[in-house]
């Protein structure tokens, strides 16, 4: 699911005789990640005597993969234009709290509350984008400020209290399975497919990548960079809203700490997945696979009862390792050409 911008640039820089399709596939970072994911999964299955493949463990594995995947994509959309969104984590929490409040206190039916969460996410994202465009302040700083504001708002919904039993239907959805896979995970996959379609096949998606790759060239080609920026931030907010809905469905109770632990993983997934911070390159598949690998580390921790803190250490080492190997590979290929 790599965006074709990446593929075409690669093809352009390739030597006169283009390598076969197979070799090109093998060389992509997605292929490396997929191999890593499979190896990790098999290794984990073997070392736990097949415990990984038991229905319960497998379902839990995929159920808790959904949110990290979507949050990674929410960050990726903004990285595509070379910016960052620090507010994704708290926004997810805020949307979840507001939707729970709408169901419990305002008496809204679940579908409307879900819609409200999505709209709220998109609206806040839109606000981020407009602020970036109109003030011309670095998106990092703008979202740092909105992160602080949303953090306050998120706590303001219900203080330190917890919301639970908000909707039997939604919680049922969170536990339901289809063909052995949790429904929340399937929803996440469907959303990921839509994001891929947006970047690969739609005009606004291509414009967005063009703006990210080279704002100057994009402007000369008649692409509105401002529109791309606003769109990217709005989409990022919308995806945070999706993550909020999935959180509501799978956890069964929400409080003001939801989303606190999502900010760093939101960067880890796209970066491991091969998304450039400079913008112009996205990889939906890479981001999803990276989230999968991080989840593997998580499960390994639970299976072997390792100190929770090793996970952070390992994820940090993996991010650094991936980045370094990418830099070294680029250096080697430059030297050989």
């Amino acid at each position, binding site marked *: 699911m790599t965006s074709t911008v990446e593929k075409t640039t690669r093809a352009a820089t390739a030597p006169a005789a283009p390598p076969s399709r197979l070799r090109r596939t093998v060389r992509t970072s997605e292929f490396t990640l997929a191999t890593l994911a499979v190896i990790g999964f098999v290794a984990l299955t073997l070392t736990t005597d097949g415990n990984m493949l038991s229905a319960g463990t497998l379902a839990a594995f995929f159920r808790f993969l959904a949110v990290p995947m979507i949050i990674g994509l929410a960050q990726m959309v903004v990285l595509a234009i070379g910016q*960052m969104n620090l507010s994704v984590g708290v926004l997810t929490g805020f949307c979840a709290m507001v939707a729970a409040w709408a169901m419990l206190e305002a008496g809204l039916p679940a579908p409307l509350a879900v819609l409200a969460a999505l709209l709220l996410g998109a609206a806040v994202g839109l606000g981020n984008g407009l*602020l970036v465009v109109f*003030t*011309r*302040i*670095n998106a*990092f*700083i*703008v979202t*740092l*400020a*909105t*992160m*602080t*504001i*949303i*953090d*306050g*708002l*998120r*706590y*303001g919904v219900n*203080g330190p209290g917890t919301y639970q039993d908000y909707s039997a239907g939604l919680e049922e959805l969170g536990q339901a399975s289809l063909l052995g896979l949790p429904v929340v995970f399937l929803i996440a996959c469907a959303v990921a497919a839509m994001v891929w379609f947006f970047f690969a096949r739609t005009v606004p998606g291509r414009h967005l990548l063009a703006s990210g790759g080279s704002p100057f060239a994009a402007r000369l080609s008649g692409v509105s960079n401002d529109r791309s920026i606003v769109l990217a931030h709005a989409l990022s907010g919308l995806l945070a809203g999706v993550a909020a809905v999935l959180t509501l469905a799978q956890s069964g109770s929400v409080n*003001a700490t939801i989303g606190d632990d999502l900010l*760093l993983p939101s*960067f*880890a997934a796209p*970066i491991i997945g091969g998304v450039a*911070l*400079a913008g112009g390159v996205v990889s939906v598949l890479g981001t999803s696979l990276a989230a999968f690998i991080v989840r593997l580390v998580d499960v390994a921790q639970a299976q072997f009862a390792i*100190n929770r*803190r*090793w*996970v*952070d*250490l*390992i*994820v*940090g*080492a993996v*991010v*650094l390792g991936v*980045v*370094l190997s*990418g*830099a*070294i590979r680029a250096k080697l290929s430059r030297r050989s050409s």
Partner: protein
Amino acid sequence: MKQEETTPEQRPPARLPLWANPRIGLVVLLIALIALFTTLRPAFLNTQLTLVPMQADISVYAVVGLSQLAVLSLGHMNMAVGRMAAMSAFASGLLHDRLDAPLLVALAGGLAVGALLGALAGLVISRTGVNSFVVTLALDFALIGLVSLLYATFTDGVAFNGLPAGMSALRTDTFADYCAGDVCGPEIPLLAPIALIAVLGVGLLFRWSRVGREVLMTGANAKAAELSGIPVRWRVVQAHALSGLLAGLAGFLLSANNGSFSAGVGDGFLLPSFLAPVLGGTLLVGGAVSVLGTVLGTAITQVIYKGLNLLQFQVDELKLYIGLVLLAALSLDRLRHVLAERRGVPA
């Protein structure tokens, strides 16, 4: 920040008119905030209750801001400030706990660990050319895990029990407790001069020293700096080492303020570390820093925190207003910039 009314004088364009100096705006804002909080709650000027703790907080967070400023000068970021502070505090605690090191040795050890971690980040960034955000983020991840594991291994919880002799004095005493005859010092906590040394040191470094100027030139244009014979890679390592060193110092100051070396030191450093320099007018693109602005930015943030705290605002509202103030201040600054540009003044 004020823009209009004061008509710009006919000066040579090299000199900024008063209204275009962002620092003046910050001072005005600071005075306005203090006046506002004092009218609402006269207790705001109570020495023991407010002013002394506030000075201690400003001391800690000014150093945190400087730690970020050290790499912002390059156009880099240090996402691991908090964890570098935590590692440094751990090293200090361990030195005291196991080797019974005195205060200064423990401090020196902690600072060395901070500087080494910073240098490590700088080395990776300069060798590979990978974005500093990614490298320090990954380092932060790794250190979060490492700090907890180390505390779990070397202590029976999340903090060291003892403190080096003299460290609790840093926490509780002000200069008013030390008298020469009848003359006592002012009500300033003992932490303040340490932070002041850091502020002066960083200010002098970036204004007068060769290394500091070359770091700024690297930040403004790395290619041009390299072509001018500046050892760009080495300067990147040095700037990051300085950031780590200052993070370590901030960790020490906070530990002194809290009264223990604990794993939680540095948890809340990331946001203030950006808040202070950015409010103070340091750009993220590199090449220019404002040390005085950073101190003012820290002071404003802490005054808002303390003031809203006294007015019995909830934690959530505090955060809300800090965020809004940041947005408003930056937008005003942007407005000032645009106005200045329109009048042909380089701001």
